[in-house]
């Protein structure tokens, strides 16, 4: 029964997104009375391998994991599966037929959703022409970063004629301030900065404020946080829209899937967790999002 099930939940970074995932996992495990072991692979493939092996030898029943890389994470997870452990992946997938269930918000989807807001904005406010810069995290997670950035650019391009003038990496807020600031200097006529994660988005907004370019440069981002919600509600008109994943849902659904599979129930092979578009144009939704977040912490 569920009471003596042990489930390992592995994240690969310590940030708000994964922290919320963990909260979701904890809630689901608690509800089912299962034991949850948590770990963080710190984006290091070798550490991930160690964790998976350790959990297997500890005899866990299931591993719920966001693999660092579709290719690099496969061998260890295959080993775990061969040892009889149920694998559920979330957020990022893995090559081969390893997981019983895979839950994610499509990374492209995230980029595209923000991109759609940007397309509308470009068409309505900028007269169909925009100069765009992007902040990604290519040196950290090239695949995910690529999906988010390209998804955005593809959709945003539908709003008119866009010119991508600079593509840089910056995923921590303080780095984002510096890099976005430099980009603004190099391209004073830029209209839009897109950042592919929370840190980058915060950094880009602050950089625009530093440069005094409120009303001239507009920021689009990814991820949801209290601070980003506040930016959307701020009347300085810098941050326009972000697309948040629903990490709490993702975490709890992933653990539930694992438990179901252990109980021999049917589980869906692929589950798409919807993304949440938050925009300056819909302040009520932003407020609601803030409220949800408060209840979590």
């Amino acid at each position, binding site marked *: 029964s569920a009471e003596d099930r042990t489930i390992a939940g592995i994240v690969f970074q*310590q940030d708000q997104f994964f922290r919320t995932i963990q909260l979701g996992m904890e809630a689901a495990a608690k509800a089912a009375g299962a034991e949850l072991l948590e770990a963080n692979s710190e984006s290091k493939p070798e550490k991930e391998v160690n964790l998976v092996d350790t959990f297997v030898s500890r005899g866990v029943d299931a591993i719920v994991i966001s693999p660092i890389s579709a290719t690099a994470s496969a061998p260890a997870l295959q080993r775990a599966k061969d040892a009889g452990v149920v694998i559920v992946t979330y957020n990022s997938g893995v090559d081969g037929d390893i997981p019983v269930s895979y839950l994610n918000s499509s990374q492209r989807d995230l980029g595209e959703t923000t991109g759609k807001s940007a397309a509308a904005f470009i068409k309505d406010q900028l007269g169909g022409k925009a100069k765009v810069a992007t902040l990604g995290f290519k040196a950290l997670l090239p695949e995910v970063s690529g999906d988010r950035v390209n998804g955005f650019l593809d959709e945003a391009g539908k709003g008119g004629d866009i010119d991508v003038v600079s593509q840089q990496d910056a995923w921590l*807020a303080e780095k984002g301030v510096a890099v976005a600031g430099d*980009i603004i*200097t190099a391209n004073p006529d830029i209209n839009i900065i897109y950042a592919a994660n929370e840190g980058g988005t915060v950094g880009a907004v*602050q950089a625009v404020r530093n440069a005094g370019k409120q009303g001239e440069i507009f920021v689009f981002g990814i991820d949801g*946080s209290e601070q980003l919600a506040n930016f959307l509600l701020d009347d300085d008109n810098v941050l326009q829209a972000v697309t948040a994943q629903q990490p709490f849902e993702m975490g709890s659904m992933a653990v539930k899937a694992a438990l179901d599979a252990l109980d021999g129930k049917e589980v869906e092979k692929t589950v798409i967790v919807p993304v949440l578009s938050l925009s300056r144009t819909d302040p009520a939704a932003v407020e609601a999002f803030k409220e949800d977040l408060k209840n979590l912490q």
Partner: protein
Amino acid sequence: MTGFIRTAFTRYPMEIILALLYIYLSFEAPGFFTVNNQLNVLRNITMQGIIAFGMTMVIISGEIDLSVGSGVALAGCVIAWICGEYTDAIGAPAAVIIGAVVAIAIQVTLGVLTGRVRQWFSVPTFITTLALLTMLRGAANLITGGFPLATFPSWFTTLGSGFFYGVPIPVYVFVVVFAVTHFIMKFTSFGRSVYAVGGNPEAARLSGINIWFVKSATLGITGALTAISGILIAAQIGSGNATAASGWELDVIAAVIIGGTSLFGGKGRIWGTFIGVLFLGFVVNGMTLLNVSEYWQYVVRGALILGAVLFNYVLEKLR
């Protein structure tokens, strides 16, 4: 004339390297040579720069501090947490001030303790601060629970991103810290002792210098500067963030060494560190302006650090 150039080259190698880089970027990097960008660079180097001045003293005194990156994160989280807990009770200004004081006090204490642990138990500061590097990061996460804490009053964030007479406010802090540390190292007997302690601890001790006081003090000063930097960063990004400033220890040490300070202690200058900080700042800024791809940035940055130190050496030999 050539004599003059030769003298300039051999006496001020890093200054010359910096000037060459500056000229190159002025011509090649779009927007580099604008007032805005110059101010931007200044703002961006401020945070690491402030710490680098303290680190210079620590390294001259023959020690090292690897915990500064985590210290920055912890300080930001501490002030954010205190603001979050106490703003309602005592009002935002009081909460900010208390938060800042507590954040600084923690880092100073840790710095001084690091020195004392070295004194009492002969544990090298390399290892103590290496342990602190992970411990403080963990503590920052425990305080914030992993979420950015956006608890600051809005006026506080101007401290990080505001301007005063057209110059970003952190830049003033940077300049003041530079001036004060420069003064300390050059015009106080404490500063003299730092050199002596790093150059030959036993000789310094036998000359009646309290070497453990000196070492602990430099570590404590660096702690204070780390906390100040952490507070400024929290102000700049508007929240206390446990992931902030990761990996800074090596950046800061690189700036100090580029500035001509010897890792073996006893030798170095605050002015040199100032040059080193500017150098790294211009390199990073220039690469972004030139839209150098992320991967090449790693390579170029490493090559420039190595190149600067090498060049410095070659010019010193010519002297």
